[in-house]
């Protein structure tokens, strides 16, 4: 099936996720959709699969314009998407999940089971129709989901980062089945990925997105460098690097490990001086979030030790971190940080730490008004926080940070912000840095990491790959490291 996406535009608030993107996919071929985090790949594919609706633009299948209000409609028209997290019901059996959401009236269970095993056999998958889905590995769940989409009549298959969390053998099996689907059955396959090697290995052609725009299409295989150049902005000439602060060691991590169900952080050791900025680079889910949250005391260390200002901190947790002057700003401002339904004044009163019984509303209103002026927030003391724009929410979050912090930990501090807000926020951070506050932040924006850090740590698959002074690395090197090409 031939797929055309014409001038697809999608905006979330002030963030343009897809900016007039036009691409075309031909049957019998495997396409790669490349781009760094936040480039707009997932949004574009969610639009194609009916999960989200575009603000403008059209979807054309075999020459006929389509409008999908739901994934179900998209699948009925032949477009199926395999999400990063398969959409199955863990307590159902494999067979029940296979039949879920499809008309199978009058079909006997034995017939359905036979159809499932036959279909699976065609691609070398081994399934037991009566096993419970929760017993399956991620790779097996993916196979099941793929079979479900095929049985549902998918002619176009979208796979969103399918190789995260599956074994090497499962990956080989998956790629083999994708080749069969394209070459022998004439399906249209789209692989969404930021892993260059995989795309080079599997795909015939790659579209590259950057910051919501289509920046190019490349016949594969090609030199990795060509893709890296397309994926990442040319780094702006770096301002003369300030001499890294030569303060005392503030944070000392020794062989710390963090364990979560999804990912394990392998031992990390590093030191951070007062006034120093450490940027954490890597694909989303490579371990840098775990490190940041462990430093904030939000995730327990499963091994190693953390020292703050020379003092060992054996029982590190978030309330203790706050007491010691550590602040943490999460990526989701309204999920983890601000409270929808509370006004700016109420936020001020909440963090004011006053011990009196009753709130002094006039005083807090005045305080909120002061912060609004100082931090140039567009809003009123009585505004509900959720009605502010993302940039203004971020400014207000900074306004609520206590003075004299030792360490600020941030996830994507400027994601979705315009240039003015971004510069303003880093100005604020620089002032604090000058007073000796150390900063650790992670970002998907390599420009930001290269320009704002003293030291850069690159993560991949739960490992700290390399830690280099920012002055000694190049844009290329970072891009390659992140693409897993080095």
């Amino acid at each position, binding site marked *: 099936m031939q797929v055309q996406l014409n001038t697809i535009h999608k905006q979330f608030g002030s963030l343009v996720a897809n900016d007039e993107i036009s691409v075309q996919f031909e049957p019998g071929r495997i396409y790669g959709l490349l781009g760094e985090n936040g480039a707009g790949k997932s949004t574009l594919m969610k639009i194609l699969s009916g999960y989200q609706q575009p603000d403008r633009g059209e979807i054309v299948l075999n020459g006929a314009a389509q409008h999908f209000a739901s994934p179900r409609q998209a699948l009925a028209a032949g477009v199926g998407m395999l999400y990063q997290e398969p959409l199955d019901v863990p307590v159902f059996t494999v067979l029940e999940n296979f039949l879920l959401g499809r008309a199978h009236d009058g079909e006997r269970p034995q017939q359905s089971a036979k159809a499932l095993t036959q279909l699976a056999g065609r691609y070398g998958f081994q399934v037991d129709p009566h096993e419970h889905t929760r017993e399956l590995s991620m790779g097996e769940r993916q196979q099941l989901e793929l079979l479900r989409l095929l049985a549902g009549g998918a002619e176009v298959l979208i796979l969103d980062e399918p190789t995260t969390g599956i074994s090497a053998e499962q990956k080989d099996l998956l790629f083999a089945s994708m080749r069969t689907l394209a070459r022998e059955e004439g399906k249209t396959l789209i692989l969404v990925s930021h892993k260059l090697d995989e795309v080079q290995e599997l795909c015939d052609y790659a579209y590259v997105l950057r910051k919501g725009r289509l920046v190019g299409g490349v016949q594969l295989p090609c030199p990795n460098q060509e893709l890296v150049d397309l994926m990442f902005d040319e780094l702006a000439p770096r301002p003369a690097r300030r001499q890294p602060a030569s303060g005392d060691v503030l944070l000392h991590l020794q062989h710390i490990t963090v364990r979560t169900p999804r990912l394990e952080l392998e031992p990390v050791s590093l030191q951070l001086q007062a006034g120093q900025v450490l940027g954490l680079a890597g694909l989303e889910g490579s371990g840098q979030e775990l490190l940041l949250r462990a430093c904030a005391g939000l995730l327990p260390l499963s091994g190693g030790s953390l020292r703050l200002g020379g003092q060992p901190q054996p029982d590190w947790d978030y309330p203790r971190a706050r007491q010691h002057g550590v602040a943490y700003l999460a990526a989701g401002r309204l999920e983890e940080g601000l*409270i929808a339904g509370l006004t700016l004044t109420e936020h001020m009163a909440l963090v004011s730490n006053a011990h009196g019984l009753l709130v002094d509303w006039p005083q807090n209103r005045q305080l909120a008004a002061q912060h609004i002026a100082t931090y140039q927030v567009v809003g009123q003391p009585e505004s509900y926080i959720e009605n502010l724009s993302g940039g203004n929410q971020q400014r207000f979050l900074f306004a609520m940070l206590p003075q004299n912090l030792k360490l600020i930990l941030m996830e994507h501090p400027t994601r979705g912000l315009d240039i003015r807000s971004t510069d303003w926020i880093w100005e604020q951070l620089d002032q604090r840095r000058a007073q000796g506050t150390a900063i650790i932040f992670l970002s998907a924006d390599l420009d930001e990491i290269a320009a704002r850090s003293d030291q850069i740590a690159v993560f991949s698959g739960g490992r700290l790959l390399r830690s280099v002074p920012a002055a000694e690395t190049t844009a290329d090197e970072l891009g390659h490291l992140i693409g897993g090409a080095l």
Partner: protein
Amino acid sequence: MSLSKTRLERVWPLLPGLAALLVTTLLLLAMGTSPVDAYSAMWQGAFGTSARVYSVLAFLVPLLLAASGLLLTFKAGLWNIGIEGQIIMGAVAASWVALRVQLPSGLQIPLELLAAMAGGALWAALAGVLKTRGGVHEIFGGLALNNLAILFTNYLIAGPWQPPEGGSFRGTQPFGAHALLPLFENSRLSLLSLALAIVAFAGVALVLTNSHWGLRLKALGQNARSAFLLGVSSNREMLLAMAVCGALAGLGGGVRVLSWFDSLRQSISGGIGYLALMVVLLAGFRLVLTPLVAFFFSAVLNGSITLQLRTQLHSALGDILTGVLVLLVLLFGNYERVRRAFRRRRSQADG
């Protein structure tokens, strides 16, 4: 156009009430009863004589106490279904003091009321600990504790606290006169308890609008994760909200045994806790509306007792009226939500 829209919006909250009245009226007509007779009987039952008004007020006291407590827990995002059990345990604790302690009234009664508050608070804290430590949702923990409280009451009545003359009477022996709340003009109303209920409600109102604690509860209820990151100790505040709610509910239970009844009975609460949940839901968690709705419920339920005597209708009519009302308000009370749902339906029909 926009003017008529805002006018519609303004009268919207009244519509579910009118609809509930309509449904009940149709029900009455279907049963062949004159609605006018039925409603006037209800009115007479609630406000016909001063004794009846006192009865409405006496029933209102525990209801308002429980509803005030629920305003706190709802604000913190907690569904304190266990409030029924907290009322019962308050009644049990007050009864324990009434049966086992002999003091002059001036000491006895405050001690009973304090015990009632402690009993309710402990029972609520138990549900809170189950949630914060055991990960048991407060709805399930609360329901289990409600049943336990009922079983415990039955055990006490049938066992250790059985009246000496034996078991046909489903309750303990009446408490001594010194242990009971002084009643107003031969009614079941204790003015002291009414004053306490009003003070409790005013206190809750002050906490919710003007205190740091109330603000922390609001933050927790709106977004527990953000509240934690902004330094609110979520477990402690949740437990405290539960305990204070339980104390108020327990006080209500104490008032039940010390004035409405004169002993611990089998169904000592009789669903006042669930009724209080309905009151707060119907009031939409709004402070000003809560006592008004509680009063309305108390009047309807008291009135329907007379209704049963006067007409041949069962007094459940009052329950039906309040039940339908709550349902309609929850379904259609929020103008914005109704409008959105309507729009969605229409756009689906178009597409």
